[in-house]
């Protein structure tokens, strides 16, 4: 792998350089496509879809709740894969991508929770109900917080990458376990209460298509954000390395 002679000793990995170069070119396109999809989907859903027979206009919240919930899960899965790649293959970009995705996933979880709670209020009469699905997302949010906090707490970047990687692995197992436990926990109390409000019911085409566009928009936004933030993390690491070099040289 050819590297410019100047700072080659500092770029102990060529991957990040290529990553930065590639994403630099991609970013404007990614942001644009994400924005277009998102705006199209939301405008379509908000302005051009009818009300639901049972839920009235609140069904429009589906265009935010479902995509954000999907991304909350997918973000964690991406972090899991990225952590595994780091633990096995030691690609720094992978570790930093996982780090970058954490806050994005956490915000997606918050959006899912907030829209879920707001949607639930007129339906259930309370601002919060310990519905199994909402509760699982609340637990997921706590996992996100722990993951982000651990990254922030450890000084050495490689140690932090390793520890957060293992945490992501173990956390994934327990997150799954929690999902099952929460279903068991609530179903035991509220037998037969139909609190399901998601797109598991057969959503008619007229709702479904704008929902797909919104989901695509959220996915693209996630990708754009993670690419961009990974670039930021790479730069942060490089700055730290340069600073260390400066201090050593001085």
């Amino acid at each position, binding site marked *: 792998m050819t590297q410019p002679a*100047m*700072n080659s000793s500092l770029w102990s990995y060529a991957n990040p350089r290529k990553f930065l170069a590639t994403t630099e070119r991609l970013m404007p396109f990614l942001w644009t496509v994400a924005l277009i999809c998102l705006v199209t989907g*939301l405008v379509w859903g*908000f*302005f051009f879809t009818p*009300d639901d027979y049972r839920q*009235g*206009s*609140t069904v*429009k*919240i589906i265009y*935010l*709740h479902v995509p*954000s919930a999907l991304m909350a899960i997918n973000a964690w899965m991406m972090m899991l894969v990225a952590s595994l790649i780091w633990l096995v293959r030691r690609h720094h970009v992978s570790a930093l991508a996982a780090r970058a995705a954490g*806050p*994005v996933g956490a*915000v997606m979880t*918050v*959006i899912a929770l*907030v*829209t879920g709670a*707001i*949607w639930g*209020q*007129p339906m259930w009469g309370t601002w919060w109900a310990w519905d199994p699905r909402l509760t699982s997302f609340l637990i997921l949010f706590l996992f996100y917080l722990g993951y982000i906090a651990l990254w922030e707490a450890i000084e050495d970047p490689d140690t932090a990458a390793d520890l957060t990687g293992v945490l992501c692995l173990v956390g994934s197992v327990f997150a799954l376990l929690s999902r099952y436990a929460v279903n068991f926990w609530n179903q035991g109390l509220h037998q037969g209460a139909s609190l399901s409000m998601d797109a598991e019911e057969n959503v008619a085409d007229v709702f479904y298509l704008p929902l797909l566009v919104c989901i695509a928009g959220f996915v693209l*936004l996630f990708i754009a*954000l993670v690419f*961009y*933030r990974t*670039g*930021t993390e790479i*730069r*942060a690491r*490089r*700055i730290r390395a*340069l*600073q260390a*070099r*400066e201090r050593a040289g001085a």
Partner: protein
Amino acid sequence: MMPDLGKYADTVLSAYAASILLLAALVALSLWRGRRLRRDMQDMEQRMRRDG
């Protein structure tokens, strides 16, 4: 222009407002940090090239 949201107007609008706000804040903060670090790195690299 605005569809008739009926009695759920507050609900729907606050859900949309909260979500868009959160997304905008996330993007804004990411961009802000990104630009700042890009600038810092360029400064550092220039400085090192000068002194190195």
